[in-house]
């Protein structure tokens, strides 16, 4: 018995078990759903056939169907705006705040900790808070703006088709800044002080130091933050569910929410799967860029 446990612990047995657990987890919880999703995108799936594999294959029909939907282009455009504006704003704000916290001032770490508050809160709570802030009639934001005399009539942040998407983008930026800030802070802290001093001795101004030292040395972190930001933003679901449900009239709808609507509200599960598959393809491309940016961080 002792011999058995020893070979188990020291021999290949234990290693195999560890690898097996990790692999098993990936297969059951990642690979299988992905494959199942891919499969469903080529099938006609309804509520009753959901649990059986024996469903009619429809080839590219689901894909054709999605591509012919009139709402496809507006939603695609919304998604691009949502991801693009969110990531750029999160990144620049996060970077600026991270640089600010590099300075030495009292309560520095304490304040930085506070920034994580939004990150710790459950997404549903965040959604509820923002829906109070942005509510048209009794919202906090409208109240503040009108008290300050900046607006005369209430703005319907969540129900005006021209504004709804940007309201969500705003909330999403708020949500993503702490993550960007923390990751970039770590990167900034990793740049040795004496490298800046050497650059200063070499005659670099503050701005030149930013562009020739800080930015290039932050390449890997920036790559990571951008790719993860894109992925997280594409995953952002709660804000849409809590604030606008994609409305009014799809004016704030994006792919991830549309996919859910199709699959779980209209029960056009095959169509929902098509959108997931397309998004997965995109995310894989982003992940590839991310992996490259971390692997070759020192080169070039």
């Amino acid at each position, binding site marked *: 018995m002792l011999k058995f446990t020893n070979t188990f612990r020291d021999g290949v047995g234990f290693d195999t078990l560890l690898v097996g657990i990790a692999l098993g987890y990936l297969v059951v919880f990642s690979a299988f759903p992905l494959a199942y999703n891919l499969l469903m995108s080529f099938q006609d799936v309804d509520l009753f056939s959901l649990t059986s594999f024996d469903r009619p294959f429809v080839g590219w029909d689901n894909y054709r169907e999605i591509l012919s939907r009139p709402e496809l282009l507006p939603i695609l455009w919304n998604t691009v705006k949502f991801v693009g504006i969110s990531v750029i704003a999160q990144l620049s704000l996060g970077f600026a705040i991270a640089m600010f916290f590099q300075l030495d001032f009292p309560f520095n770490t304490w304040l930085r900790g506070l920034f994580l508050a939004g990150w710790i809160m459950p997404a549903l709570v965040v959604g509820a808070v923002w829906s109070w802030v942005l509510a048209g009639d009794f919202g906090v934001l409208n109240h503040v703006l009108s008290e300050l005399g900046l607006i005369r009539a209430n703005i319907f942040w969540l129900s005006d088709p021209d504004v709804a998407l940007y309201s969500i983008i705003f909330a999403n930026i708020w949500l993503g800044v702490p993550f960007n800030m923390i990751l970039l802070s770590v990167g900034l802290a990793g740049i040795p002080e004496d490298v800046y*001093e050497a*650059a200063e001795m*070499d005659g670099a101004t503050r701005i030149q130091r930013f562009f020739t030292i800080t930015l290039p040395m932050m390449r890997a972190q920036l790559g990571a933050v951008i790719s993860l930001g894109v992925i997280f933003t594409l995953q952002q679901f709660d804000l849409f569910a809590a604030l606008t449900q994609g409305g009014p009239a799809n004016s704030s709808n994006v792919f991830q929410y549309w996919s859910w609507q199709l699959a779980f509200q209209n029960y056009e599960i095959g169509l929902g799967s098509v959108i997931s598959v397309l998004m997965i393809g995109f995310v894989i491309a982003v992940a590839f860029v991310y992996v490259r940016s971390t692997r070759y961080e020192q080169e070039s």
Partner: protein
Amino acid sequence: MTFQIELDQINKYYGAYHALRDVSLQIPQGQFVALVGPSGCGKSTLLRTIAGLEGISDGRIEIAGRDVSTLAPRERDLAMVFQSYALYPHMTVRKNLTYSLRLKRRKAGEIDTAVEEIARITGLDGLLDRYPRELSGGQRQRVAMGRAIIRDPKAFLFDEPLSNLDAALRVHMRAEIRKLHNRLGATSVYVTHDQIEAMTMADHVVVLRAGRIEQQGAPLDLYDRPANRFVAGFIGSPAMNFVDGVVAGDGRSVQLDLAGAPVLRFAGQRPAGEPVCVGLRPEHLEVGAGRDINRLDLPVGMVERTGAASYVVSDTTPELMIAAPVRVADGARIAVSIAPENLHLFARAGEGLRLNT
């Protein structure tokens, strides 16, 4: 005469901590100055105030006759070699070397010739396209040097540039830096806590303690005539022996607080009965020298043999270290003598100022 670097009554506080106290220093063009002192005495702080990386609380800094006390580092035109080298990790050696020139928007052709020249001087040809992480410690050191030289600055500042190298390479680089200095004729300020480095490299040595200049002068002046006990103990290796004593009735010899109360002659004259601290360098205690006076007969305690020399520690209180060129047996007694002019007398009270002239 205008000096290349002139410090006038520099004071520097970190909060309430007084890091530099009334430091005044004049460095002529082309001089190699070493700042030495124990850890925490303010060597780096002084160097960094010259560089402009630290502000000063009080005083005046002039470089080539221009008051730079409040100017930013980049307006002072000095180059610095850091202990950690502080190379730009994301740039190749070539980019590291040319960084300052590129900031100044020099022409590409001009930059290329400069790089070739520097690579030749520092022995970096063939390594120009490597990244710092692909270099050995010694090669990084050369890049740091090259990056300073290429700028042709008003002066070079070195902060313990060799302390990360192994002993053999350190000795080699020591000679190389000094050769480079002679060749470029530039003014250099060199911080080290290694007094041998300071003594061998510098024209002028400045000994710091607790933010204050204890003594400055040519290396051999410091060795021959240390101004106080601290400098006497700091300069010279192995360190000077100190024994308390009292000036004898003739005012020309001193009675030591050792077993047998030996009396040694010294050069000069002091009041009889004055309590003193006598400094005896280990290498001045000559074994078996045919001298009639100033003999000491000491019991041998421990012997350290390096081959070339033996270091004998006497079995007395306080212990005396003797640098003996011969092989000495343990347990025996050893007879040494010392020339009167090699006895250093310091006051026992206060700063331990030098008493003999």
